[in-house]
């Protein structure tokens, strides 16, 4: 066992160094800069869109048509000092609070707050972003009342407003599903970027025939696992490099930190990230092992290139399955995605967002580890049978060809 570990690490070390100590690696490492550059251009456009959305934001006043002029008048006056979102006065349909809630569902623009009820006992539904808007609506009601009456004592308030926060359908749950989805996406994205490289990993050994030296000295399983670990090291370097840059960037933007803290995953932030890292490892090893095994069967660079499309499709399919699971936690499809070995790491990465229990993760990690071992064993066996052994068959196989011709 110790010997196997040692041999695996020798292979891993070689692969890691051979990958990192090349100029191409710098290009690989810095490639996201290009993505970020395009992202910045894109985000300029996006922020314009966002400010467009702010222009469209409204505050609504459900008021009797008779009160409307007074309210509009007060608004015209107050608007000189404040600059609230656009005020729209809506005629009541008699349903009261129900009408107000429905108005939040308006599609055009964002509704910050809705006021309804008699002016002296006003109720304001506050949509979360509209704390100032709610105060503004209250003040409008007060002014409108005062305008219709004389001799009000300076300190006296004519209106009593109740401000109720508007509850969108289970916001915490959907927020958590949002994090779950984000976790699935991050793990998928990193794996998509990094694990695909595994396809061509044995191409080098096959083309320069080092494979026989390796195969003679080290069990193929160790060769496969070593190569995976070596490439995972490269992936980790990549993730750490960008992770550090990203957190540095985030710390400059405190508002983002706030949103993150506001939407805590059910399992807790630290375990969520730890499990996320573990699932990334598993996703990388699992998919990497599949790709490595499939790629090892290919005998030419062209075949490897041809394989990249089905491999991407396979990954996207796993992502699709897992993201469905993240948005529908607890359903059969979610359970399937969490159990099916090749989507399990993605799905389980999102699982912690909505489920506080730890043990499913322990179980999932063991389960995934088992599949990593199984995949590597099968891949090595196929390689041994298909590439090292067989001399017949249509495909030109490296050793097979040699085995029969040269013996």
């Amino acid at each position, binding site marked *: 066992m110790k*010997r196997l570990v*040692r*041999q695996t690490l*020798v*292979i891993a070390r*070689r692969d890691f160094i*051979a990958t990192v100590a*090349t100029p191409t690696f710098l290009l690989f490492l810095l490639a996201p800069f290009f993505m970020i550059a395009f992202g910045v251009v894109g985000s300029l456009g996006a922020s314009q869109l966002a400010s467009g959305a702010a222009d469209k934001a409204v505050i609504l006043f459900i008021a009797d048509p008779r009160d409307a002029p007074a309210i509009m008048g007060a608004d015209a006056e107050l608007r000189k000092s404040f600059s609230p979102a656009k005020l729209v006065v809506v005629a009541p349909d008699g349903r009261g609070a129900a009408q107000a809630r429905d108005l939040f569902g308006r599609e055009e623009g964002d509704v910050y707050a809705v006021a309804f009820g008699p002016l002296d006992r006003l109720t304001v539904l506050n949509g979360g972003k509209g704390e100032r808007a709610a105060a503004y609506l209250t003040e409008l009601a007060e002014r409108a009342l005062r305008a219709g009456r004389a001799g009000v004592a300076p300190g006296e308030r004519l209106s009593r407003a109740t401000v109720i926060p508007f509850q969108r359908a289970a916001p915490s749950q959907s927020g958590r599903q949002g994090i779950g989805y984000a976790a699935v996406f991050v793990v998928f994205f990193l794996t998509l970027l990094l694990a695909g490289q595994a396809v061509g990993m044995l191409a*080098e*050994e096959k083309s*320069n*025939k*080092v*494979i*026989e*030296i*390796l*195969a*003679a*000295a*080290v*069990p193929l399983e160790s060769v496969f696992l070593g190569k995976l670990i070596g490439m995972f090291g490269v992936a980790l370097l990549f993730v750490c490099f960008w992770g550090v840059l990203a957190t540095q960037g985030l710390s400059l933007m405190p508002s983002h930190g706030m949103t993150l803290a506001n939407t805590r995953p059910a399992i807790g932030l630290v375990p969520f990230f730890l499990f996320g890292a573990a699932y990334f490892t598993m996703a990388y090893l699992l998919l990497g092992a599949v790709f490595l095994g499939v790629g090892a069967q290919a005998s030419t660079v062209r075949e490897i290139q041809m394989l990249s499309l089905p491999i991407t499709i396979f990954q996207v399919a796993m992502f699709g399955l897992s993201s469905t699971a993240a948005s529908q936690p607890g359903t059969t499809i979610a359970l399937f995605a969490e159990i099916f070995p090749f989507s399990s790491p993605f799905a389980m990465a999102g699982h912690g967002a909505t489920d506080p229990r730890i043990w499913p993760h322990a179980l999932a990690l063991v389960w995934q580890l088992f599949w990593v071992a199984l995949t590597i064993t099968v891949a090595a066996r196929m390689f041994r049978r298909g590439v*090292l*052994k*067989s*001399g*017949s*068959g249509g495909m030109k196989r490296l050793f*097979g060809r*040699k*085995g*029969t*011709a*040269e*013996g």
Partner: protein
Amino acid sequence: MGDDLAVRATGLSKLFGGRRAVDGVDLEVPMGMIYGVLGPNGAGKTTTLRMLLGILEPDRGSRMIFGNPNPRAVGDRIGYLPEERGLYPAMKCREAIAFMGALRGLDWQEGRKRAGDLLESARLGHATDDKIRKLSKGMAQLVQLLGSIVHKPDLIVLDEPFSGLDPVNQERLEALIRSEQARGATILFSTHVMAHAERLCDRLAIIAGGKRRFEGTVAEARAELPMHALYVPRSDGPGLSALLPADAAPAGEGWRFLLPEDGIEPVLQRVMAAGHGIAGLSLERPGLHDAFVRIVGKAAMGDME
């Protein structure tokens, strides 16, 4: 199984798609010997070696290395130079040798140190920090050979080690093999070049058509063929050929024929009596080359029948 055999193979067989690449080969290599596996191209030498090393599993038969039926279990005591040479082109010579040592359980630091010494003694010291891709094919092959002995293995398996080397490097390789034997290692190598086998091997096996056709020393192999006589008369004449054995054929100044069963003396008496005299006479065993051709040829004939 504490015998003093480094390698023992019994009835090794390997099928490649219905064709018997190796068919019941037995092999016994005593410790400390230089042992040659000879055979024509496609005889099954490489497949036999691969089965011995555990790269391939035999379809039938068994093998033991140092008494262990699982060759991989003793992998750290084995050094192997495959026939298909291969090194990572981007690696430096020193690293490549240390890497091969590390695969066999040698510490990296120690491997690098030994690599320097080995390269120096192979007169490749100038290339220690060169990348493999800068080397000539022959140099790269030497580097790979050094890599396969850097961990001081007890058994060294070399598949066609001389092919691709110029005569000077072939000479160096022979010296290296002898020095490894002097260190105490057992060397098993395959070749189809008889000259090396003749000079190096303590024992050898000849494989043809997947079967073992001969096993023994070089002298025993040569003894498979009768001695040849080369007779050069002092004065040639028309009647001479009639006095010589029937198979005598002119060869340069003289005649060559197989040594008759009753010896050379009756022939000499006849030619002396006829006054042809003796300017030169040599009796010699045919070389391993001829023995090999005969053994392999016989095997091919046997397979045809």
